[in-house]
């Protein structure tokens, strides 16, 4: 993949990672497991983006967190907050609008 394509793909995916996190974290989970599961279902994201993103979403009150110390390695579990849930709804609706609009464009109705 050339650099131009890569940068446009990155632009396109940037916002979808936020939405994917908010939806996925209705079930509490920790950073690395989230990274694996998102990449596993095809939402491409790298660790350097995801970890700072989780921290930022928590700071904005869209995620809540709790340390789990049951295992040898303490892990921070994130969960979508009510505010995060609300934002996920708004983003999902917008995503569907964009999808419909693009579908109309590609099928020629919009032009």
């Amino acid at each position, binding site marked *: 993949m050339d650099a131009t394509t890569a940068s446009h793909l990155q632009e396109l995916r940037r916002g979808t990672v936020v939405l994917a996190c908010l939806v996925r974290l209705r079930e509490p989970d920790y*950073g690395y497991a989230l990274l694996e599961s998102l990449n596993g279902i095809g939402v491409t994201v790298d660790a*350097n983006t995801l970890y*700072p993103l989780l921290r930022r979403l928590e700071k904005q009150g869209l995620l809540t967190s709790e340390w789990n110390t049951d295992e040898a390695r303490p892990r921070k579990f994130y969960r979508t907050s009510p505010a995060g849930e609300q934002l996920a709804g708004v983003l999902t609706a917008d995503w569907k609008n964009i999808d419909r609009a693009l579908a109309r464009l590609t099928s020629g109705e919009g032009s």
Partner: protein
Amino acid sequence: MTTPAATLTDRYVWAAAHNLPEPQREEFGRELRERIGDEVDARRQSGAPTDDAEFAVLVELGDPAALAAKYLDRPLHLIGPRYYLTWKRLVTTLLAIVLPIAVGAVLLAQALAGAPVGEVFASAFSVGFSLAVQLAFWPTLVFAIVERSPGSGPVDRWTPERLPTIPDDGKGGRLGDLIASLVFLGLFAGVIIWQGYGAPVANRLGESVPVLSPDLWSFWIPWFLVVIGLEMVFAAAIYVWGWNWWLAIVNLLLNVAFAVPALWLFTSGQLVNPEFLDVVGWPWGEAGGIVATIIVFAFIAVSVWDVIDGVIKTVRRRGGSALSLGRI
């Protein structure tokens, strides 16, 4: 019990956490440990030895300071897009206004103090250089601090009133210049001729005394009149063709042809009629040297500015050509 590999992680976490404010460090350190641990585990599961896995993970994380900046949303640039244009305008304005004034003032002051030429230029250069560094440094420091302080500072808001006027390249725009040049040059030539016959200064016998040395009529006064005539032709050429590099060079040559002989005659005392100096009582005590120096400097400044002005107009015209094509 600490293994060498664990020490490496400890050092990394410590180095990264120290970029954060004290209250956030502990939480951030735990988060980073979790991340490193999970990534090392993943590598070990795919068969790498623990030490190698740890090393590879830290290499992938990169510079701890850059990583911390990413976690903090802290800018890794000195001045970002929000303030860059304001900063650039301020620094260029300061350099364009303050620097020439300061350097000119130093040149003048040194010359008035009677310093040797080498020393005059050396001190003007050193003052100009250190002033340029200062003018660039302090605004940059302030903007870098503002960039890093929370909240939105007052941003320079752009409004349409700031749009520059499009330079008028047409002959219509140059007609004013032509008239002004011809009138000025005509008056100038007239004054040179008139001072030889009917100057307002008279000696005790009531005869009028020429300002310029009458000896100059043999060669130099005709020379200056010819140069003035060429300047008039040149003004017409500018009107017809507009500024270009050839005319900018001709402008330089004309300025040299006038200024160099005039300055040489003036400084060697051949320009002004000795009888005229007697009548007006020159030299005026202490002030004489200073007045002479100021005249020389003003003269050089006007000539140099004329040459620079020609170059600026040439460059602008070239830069503006795409715009005028767009207007057709």
